[in-house]
């Protein structure tokens, strides 16, 4: 990654949220451009070639999910969406359409910054070749080459499906994954309707990896949307 300031485009119709994002993000060294409408945003996107897009799903002129589909037709730029509370279905649609992460309004700046960093890291990874295939977070260590999982340096035995599930989460560590996305990657497209499979295996994984499965520290549930492996 070149040492220039990362470029972020904020597509958001509310001026005061735009102002707050611009001020805060600039302070943290981002180069921020703003767009108040979907059309304007798409133009900016073509011109600025940003490193990340923050997209409000409630744009006045276009449906947020349509914006994501339009972008994904030609760009892999990471997208973090902002959505209203209790719009689980909309979040899922946006994530399935290709958004990388989401934040529910109102949100704290800390959370936003964490999401942006995860998204940027994931976007950067394919470029970094020769990355060692060992993932570590807190007390969990996953050696993807040797398929070895250990907690507090104690090896944990996982079934093939449990391992596959963990591997998918590790691959997208820090990012939210919808039920559909996980089911699709672990079991294949024909299991899309069986979200309870996923929940049971998730529960089994927690039993094996978490100190207290009722107070998970690693395998977090994103209520009504999916799961996230905590990675920061």
């Amino acid at each position, binding site marked *: 990654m070149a040492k220039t300031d990362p470029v972020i485009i904020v597509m958001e119709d509310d001026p005061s949220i735009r102002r707050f994002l611009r001020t805060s993000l600039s302070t943290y060294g981002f180069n921020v451009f703003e767009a108040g409408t979907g059309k304007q945003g798409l133009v900016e996107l073509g011109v600025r070639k940003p490193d990340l897009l923050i997209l409000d799903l409630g744009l006045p002129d276009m449906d947020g999910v349509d914006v994501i589909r339009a972008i994904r037709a030609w760009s892999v730029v990471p997208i973090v969406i902002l959505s209203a*509370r*209790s719009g*689980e*279905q909309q979040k899922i649609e946006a994530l399935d359409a290709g958004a990388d992460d989401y934040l529910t309004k*109102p949100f*704290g700046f800390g959370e936003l910054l964490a999401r942006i960093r995860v998204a940027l890291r994931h976007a950067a990874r394919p470029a970094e070749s020769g990355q060692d295939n060992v993932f570590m977070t807190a007390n969990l260590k996953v050696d993807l080459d040797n398929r070895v999982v250990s907690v507090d340096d104690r090896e944990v035995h996982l*079934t*093939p*499906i*449990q391992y596959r599930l963990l591997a998918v989460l590790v691959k997208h560590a820090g990012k939210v994954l919808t039920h559909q996305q996980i089911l699709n990657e672990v079991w294949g497209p024909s299991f899309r309707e069986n*979200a*309870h*499979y996923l*929940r*049971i295996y*998730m*529960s089994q994984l*927690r039993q094996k990896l978490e100190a*207290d*499965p*009722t*107070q*998970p520290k690693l395998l*977090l*549930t994103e*209520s*009504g949307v999916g799961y996230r492996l905590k990675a920061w």
Partner: protein
Amino acid sequence: MNNERPDPDQLLARVERDQAKARRGRLKIFFGAAAGVGKTFAMLLAARERRAENLDVLVGVVDTHGRKETQALLDGLEVLPLRQIEYKGTVLHEFDIDAALKRRPGIILVDELAHSNAPGSRHPKRWQDIRELLEAGIDVFTALNVQHLESLNDDIGQIAGIRVWETVPDTFFEDADEVELVDLPPDELLLRLKEGKVYLPQQAQEAVQHFFRKGNLIALRELSLRQTANRVDAQMLDYREDNAIRDVWQVSDRILVCIGPNELAERLVRAGKRLANSLRAEWIVAYVETPQLQRMPAAKRDGVLRILRLAEQLGAETVTLSAPEMSAALIRFSRERNINKIVIGKPSRRGWRRWLLGSVVDVLISHAHNINIYLLGSPRGRGWVEEPSELNLFRKSPLPGLRQRIPAKTKRRYGGYVWAIAVTLFSTTVGYLMFGRLELANLVMVYLLGVVFVATRFGRGPSVLASVLGVGCFDFLFVQPYHSFSVADSQYLITLLAMLVVGIVISNLMVNVRAQAKVAAHRERRAAALYSMSKELASSQSEEQVVVIAVKHLYSEFSSPNTILFPDASGRMEFPRKPAIAESLPGADPSVAQWVFDHNEIAGHGTNTLPGARAVYFPIHNEDKVLGVLALLPVNLRRVFLPEQQKLLETFLRQIGQAISRIRFSEQARSTQMQMEAERLRNSLLSAISHDLRTPLATIIGSASTILHDEGKLNPRDRLELMQGIVDEAGRMSNLVNNILDMAKLEAGALELNKQWYPLEEIIGTVLTLLHNQLAGRPVKVKLPEGIPMILADSVMIEQVLINLLENAARYTPPGSGLEIEAEINDAAVEITVADHGPGIPRGQEERLFEKFYQSRHEMAQSGVGLGLAICRAIVEVHGGRIQAKNRDEGGAAFVFTLPLDQPAPCMEAEE
């Protein structure tokens, strides 16, 4: 009856009449002595004058009969097209009342007031169409010949020898706002007739020629002039009453016309009408139904019905009195109603029968003081009627659609006679066995016992037969000389005579007792039916229940399928509401019901309005308005239209109307209360929001402006504190707004559950992660049983329940105290408990906690709006569970909610 003051009721009636008139259209009748005097011509002239005054004139129906002068007058007037009615293969042209009502002209011309409409029209008679036009506020011009006036029908029949069946009730004529007499001297009319200027229907040419004799025409002219003069007289009296009521108001006469089921009835009614007219008196036509009369054949009772209907049309009030004795009933009624004149037929009993059995007239004369009695003789022997019309009237079906019923009881009667013979034979056998051993008087008793038996079981005829047979057998077998009908000892003649008389008297007595018992049983049954319906209605809770109860009882009383129709919010009648029950009448016609609803009058089959309808439609009303319409399909119209049945039906309908209005009132009261409740909620919501939103806002604005205006004086620690305050308060506000929105969504029922299978552990885990900060420093114990099944729920919502419960616990218990979350499997439900170690719930408030905007401790600074628990309850209940609060024995509060496990969790093969 010597009150000099004007009767307030009368005054009120006058005011009401005036008001009704102001709303109604004005009726002008062009009145003439006979066809050809130029009524239509005069009417059209008047119409053209109005047209010239720029009034909206419409010709509804005018038959010019091809006369050129009349035809010419139609030019320039708007003519309404006639309606075509297919009837038995021919097309009839009729006045189109619906089109006229829709067009709503200022004045409409409708010729031939006495015309009878084609079958299938709304009303059988044109005058009824006109009445509806007037009620709709449209002025009407029409034409009428004197012979069509109902009360003159009789007289003109006598004069001209022709009876017309197309008649117009006198009341209708009298209520006309204006009557213009179109007069033509008879000679001129005859001249016009000769010139062919008078239209005569082809088929009746000869009869009509007979009618147009000079003598007839003079008489008709006199009648029409007199009628018009009477009207002018009446108008003048009215005027004087209006302007000097006190002086002119006199004690008015009240005339009672008593009719019986005989040929005289119609003449009595007409005579009564004439008397009432000449005295300008109120008149009442009464029919007394004695037990004997109730046993009368149905056809005769129908005749009475028809006469009563006729009397109503002539403007009389009609009553049917039910009493054991006619004279007593009439005297009592006369006293009650201050009758001072009675019109009654001449006694039918003559000679010794009248002397022996008495007559109503004699009793009336001797008992009714201050009442003048007018007797009317029988018309027999006078040859003016080709066919005895009164008989004809009785033979005619009294109501359109009412069928004669053929008595089907001959077989049973015949059986009675057989029984009479058998009983006599049995008595004779018993007598034969007793003969010689006992006195003859005892044998007589045996026969009389037989007669009593027959009388109680089989009625008058068989018991009389038994008496006569008994006397015969007794004489033949037991009275010397034996085996002969002659009597040797003349004292036995007395025995035989006494036996016969006693036998017949017993027969009569028994029959009357039987009949009275039957009537009493009938009455009792009716009273019981009414009682049982009113009892059920009294306990009914909804209109649907009332309808079901009403339909069921009406069916059992009138054996007719029926249904009740109600109007929708805009007053249009709707098809009957569900639920339909076995007794319901399918296919009621809302358009007929609409008419009934709008006019508050009975219509349909057997009535004067829309007689083509299959069912009869009755309005159901309370004191001030029509509530609905009953459609009843009578198996037999008699069951509905006989006076006592009609009274019963009216009582039923009144009961139903009262029940409906009772329910409507209580519904109204309930909805008012609900509105008040909603109002209260809105108020508490407003006060809660204004308090709970303003407090954090005050902190936020205060802190933020302090930082904004800071000129470097704030030290970094204070600055940080202020900013932390802003974030915390904003978070509180955000929670509050979320709660309010959740509640609104739950209340609006707009929430769709996204139910899926979840391990309970995952839901609890999510919540504890989310509340990490709020629960910091508190030990949280989670106890889930081994192998707990997955639950089917909307995870986001159940999480919300847990969040609210845990937040409450954190808010109301001392910092650092522990919390417990436990689950148990319990009778096909998971029971989840959130318990704390705080001060517990104030006694008696365990339920109130779940009410909206309820807070157990108002004084606490960190209060919410009081929505959290209400939201919990709503969510748990949409999941089919229950939630409650209690104090734990070991201290602290526990909130327990259940989620049903009514579906088997999906299974999955184990992988290991």
